[in-house]
């Protein structure tokens, strides 16, 4: 495959995160330039997420970094990887964050900056709840996260 901007850029990002990863983040797998998984822990002692590790899944289109990657939390039984409780994270792992939408995304963002944003999003949370209409959304949603239009009303996160 011809080297596209996406593969070139992802190879550089990977080189960087293999070298040094910020605290609380672990690269689990990156076997190709389409899907990576990263484990995330919250750095402070937020009682909601104490001693928990969450798994993030990144899906890159070949328009990356012009388009955002699809980022979701995935749940696993072994090792235990729950979906974090957060008013902007649905129980199927879909994250409502403007950074990950078409409009909030910018090509200067990268995998590491997304992870750090999510970390701080969890750190700053004190509500042990799911988004409004979570059950209905999870039951009916057939769209991929990038096609869902969220209304970003909460700029405190």
């Amino acid at each position, binding site marked *: 495959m011809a080297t596209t901007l996406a593969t070139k850029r992802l190879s*550089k990002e990977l080189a960087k995160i293999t070298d040094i990863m910020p605290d609380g983040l672990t690269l689990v797998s990156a076997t190709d330039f389409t899907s990576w998984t990263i484990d995330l822990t919250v750095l402070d002692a937020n009682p909601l997420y104490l001693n928990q590790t969450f798994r993030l899944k990144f899906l890159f289109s070949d328009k990356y970094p012009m388009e955002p990657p699809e980022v979701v939390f995935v749940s696993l039984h072994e090792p235990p990887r729950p979906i974090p409780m957060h008013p902007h994270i649905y129980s199927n792992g879909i994250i409502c964050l403007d950074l990950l939408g078409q409009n909030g995304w910018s090509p200067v963002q990268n995998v590491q900056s997304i992870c750090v944003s999510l970390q701080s999003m969890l750190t700053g949370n004190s509500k042990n709840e799911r988004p409004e209409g979570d059950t209905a959304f999870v039951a009916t949603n057939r769209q991929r996260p990038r096609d869902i239009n969220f209304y970003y009303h909460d700029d405190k996160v």
Partner: protein
Amino acid sequence: MDANLNTENVMDSTDWNDTALPAFEQVDAALRCRVCKDFYETPMITSCAHTFCSRCIRRCLTDKGICPVCNTKDQEMKLRPNLAIGELVDAFAKAWRSAFDLAKSATKGCSVASLGSGKRKRVVEAQTDEGPFKKTRASGRRTRSSTQQSVTIPDSDDDYTDEEPEDGLVSCPICQGRMSVQDVQKHIDKCDGLPPPRKKTPIPAIQHPVFPTRITKPPSKLTTLAHPHYGLLKDGPLRKKLTDQGLRADGSRALLEKRWTEFVIAYNANCDSIIPKSKLELKKHMEKWERAQTVHDREGAMIADKEFDGRAWAMKHDNGFKKLIEDAKRKLTAKDTQQQAEMGSPEQRNRDTMFNSTIKTTVAGSHSQHLQHPQSNMTQTQTTPRAPILKPYENGTLPAAAPPPNQYSDNLFPSTHTHSLKPSDTSQPPDEYDPPLPSQLQHTPTPTRPGSSQQGPCR
């Protein structure tokens, strides 16, 4: 991590961390474009004073019209070349290999001075002597290895000391020049007080290495191309534009537009360059792009709308597709029976015709004109370039109804064209370059997509 991609050969600013000069990580990073993470190629500065590669920022501005760093609105017209950064990158890229190898061979914490490289010594000294900017950059390293602080540079401008160097010579009391004892008297008679020319040639690293090649002329004044308004540009003229530039003019409308956009970006970036590439190289770039597209196309790139979700679309219209295929089959069978009644073995003949026409349409890139399809609304495909052409069956949602293209010959039904049978096909003009509107729903997924409410793939 064993299964992960091998990134050993990828150069990145963090490579400096393992060397004797970790502070160079920041220098290296500062010279890289924040979009492609590579060294700046034809750096351009935006009106918000951010610098990117010409091609990167042009692509971003074409896409969204905002600066990727600060989200300020900007236009391609307002971009200006950042010549200083360009020179800096060129010089750094030239020096990179030797500097990196040297830094790598020296272990961390080991005195750089012990390497005996005059160049390195000079650099360290210069950082110590100069203003606060340099100090910040180098301070991290200097605190770590104290030996580096003791590095003395024998030939810098301000390193005259009272100490007599042990070279067996004496210095002239007037001009401080070094000479043998016998020569002093002769010299004093005609000494003009000016310091003698240094015997040692100054180290090139500290001289302005790029001075002879400093860019004095402005960037080439090649006229840049404007992005056309695709809504007003018909297929014919667009194809002509492509052919005029020696580019391929085949493929779907969406591909044509993408190809032209890519060419305009590459062409304009080339115009910005100090030393523009030849047309041949541009063509090579486009060929490379074409190759990347082929991979992309197979994954459904023929869908013009970049937000189109084929899987969701296929799921939503699963029943509709099935029903239409059933209808088509029934009609065809009816036709067959009729023909059978009229002549001998129509099936083989029919299959051949169908196969040929399928191939023909695929190659021609237009999707319906050769086919005698039972569905009358097929003609609409030609006016709806955003129709999902291959997506629905690629992900296997319609396995029975839609075999992959290589099974055409075994299939009587022109399943490659199921897309044109989509139940709610509307003849919308192509508007995929319109930015999507912000949604108005609070935290709830919208049932429709902006910009194409009738074609929304979601349910």
